[in-house]
């Protein structure tokens, strides 16, 4: 094999470089190629398809890896990622983001207490699908809400994430104490009347969610890009996940979420995650609360839709 690092072997190659028409590329455009190559490597080697993700924020997260791994260029990570699963896991973690908090956006959970929970109470069985559970903060937010509404025994929360590492964290349910003040304040804004800290036990300098609150939760690995509907549910919670997807992927995931909803069931998105013309594209969904981005799947199929099928 040719020892490429030995400069004397470049002699004949260099001669051609002079005559090659090189197009001037700006670094940020070249970085876009690097992003594509990284995604291709991830997909071929590990089966994760991030190609439909919104590019600007994806690139920002990937470029942050160059500092973390102290490399000059993103593509220098490709060999490490291909052969070392730990590196790949770090890359996947950085792409599949989001850290959350308990009762993030208090006003949203206030609307949930007032609208969704009483509505759910009318269903004989309550299945909830929370997609994109991250570290589990929001999953246990749901568990606390159900507990306080007296619905915990009838309800089952299916909490999914693409990333198995996040699922392990979420199952463990332990966090640093330093978040506690913020979370307590969020809880209060959501209309919570209890002592928020009672839902945790202290362990090894951390706070861990009480075991009772884990009873109704099942953590499952689910990939919104490639996996299908797995259960009919009465409430879908998918907050701040769709904004990470490009238009096409966003459409297909919204279809998936809306298909998995029983009629009369609820859909909750991120509070600023207003999807352009959502109710026009999904006439089955009606908006209940614009500020919370809360929707409901209509109980009756609308007439025009029936005609479409005739």
């Amino acid at each position, binding site marked *: 094999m040719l020892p490429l690092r030995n400069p004397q072997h470049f002699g004949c190659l260099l001669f051609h470089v002079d005559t090659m028409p090189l197009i001037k590329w700006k670094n940020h455009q070249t970085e876009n190629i690097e992003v594509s190559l990284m995604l291709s490597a991830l997909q071929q080697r590990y089966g994760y398809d991030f190609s439909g993700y*919104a590019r600007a924020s994806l690139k*920002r997260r990937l470029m942050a890896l160059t500092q973390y791994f102290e490399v000059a260029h993103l593509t220098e990570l490709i060999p490490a990622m291909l052969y070392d699963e730990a590196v790949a896991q770090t890359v996947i973690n950085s792409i599949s983001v989001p*850290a959350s908090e308990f009762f993030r956006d208090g006003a949203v959970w206030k609307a949930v207490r007032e609208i969704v929970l009483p509505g759910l109470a009318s269903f004989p069985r309550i299945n909830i699908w929370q997609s994109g559970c991250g570290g589990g903060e929001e999953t246990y937010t749901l568990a606390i809400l159900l507990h306080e509404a007296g619905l915990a025994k009838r309800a089952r929360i299916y909490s999914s994430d693409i990333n198995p590492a996040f699922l392990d964290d979420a199952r463990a349910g332990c966090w640093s104490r330093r978040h506690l003040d913020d979370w307590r304040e969020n809880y209060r804004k959501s209309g919570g009347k209890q002592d928020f800290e009672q839902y945790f036990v202290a362990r090894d300098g951390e706070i861990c969610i009480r075991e009772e609150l884990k009873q109704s939760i099942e953590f499952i690995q689910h990939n919104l890009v490639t996996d299908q509907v797995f259960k009919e549910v009465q409430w879908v919670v998918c907050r701040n996940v769709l904004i990470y997807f490009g238009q096409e992927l966003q459409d297909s995931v919204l279809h998936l979420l809306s298909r998995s909803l029983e009629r009369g069931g609820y859909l909750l998105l991120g509070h*600023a995650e207003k999807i352009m013309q959502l109710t026009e594209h999904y006439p089955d969904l009606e908006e209940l609360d614009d500020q919370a981005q809360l929707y409901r799947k209509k109980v009756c199929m609308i007439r025009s839709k029936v005609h479409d099928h005739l």
Partner: protein
Amino acid sequence: MTTYKLLVIGLSAGGYPLIKRILQALPKNYPLPVAIVAHLPGGDESNLAQLLDASAQLHVRMATDKQVLARGNVYLAPPGYHLLIEQNGDAPLAFALSVDEPVKSVRPSIDVLFDSAAEALETSLIAVLLSGANSDGAEGMATVKKLGGLGMVLDPRLSEFSTMPEAAIKRVEVDYVVSLDEIISLLLSVDEKS
């Protein structure tokens, strides 16, 4: 001659009266869409669109994910979300939101908006930094300048909270370090050229 396609503005503490005056001055037919990241103390951002809309001639509103940018509009980053500009192939410029980690402890981050806008628009971008008590926007301004955009910073001597403009000027050489009146007349002269 360069044709500008987008105006981005960053502000923090002390910035509200300044952005209000800028928006009062921009005419209804201003040729560029305007994107703003404002972090104000105490989560006051949620009413900001309404407040500014009341006195501006342009239509001021919160930006929405995947929304296509159109002239005649001023878009604000929603509280708690980073605001980014997406340029995908031949598709029109559109917004994207993210809840990625705060940058320099703030979200929305001026750096994030400026970086993404600079990459999407290169020389067709105008970036303005007003006033604030942290250094957000300095890195973003450096990206804007590196990619050939036009950069303006409010003269720190005229700013109540000068950390932000000072940090930007220290980080990178910008095109103008001037008073608010001069920023306004520069922004209006874009109108005449286009």
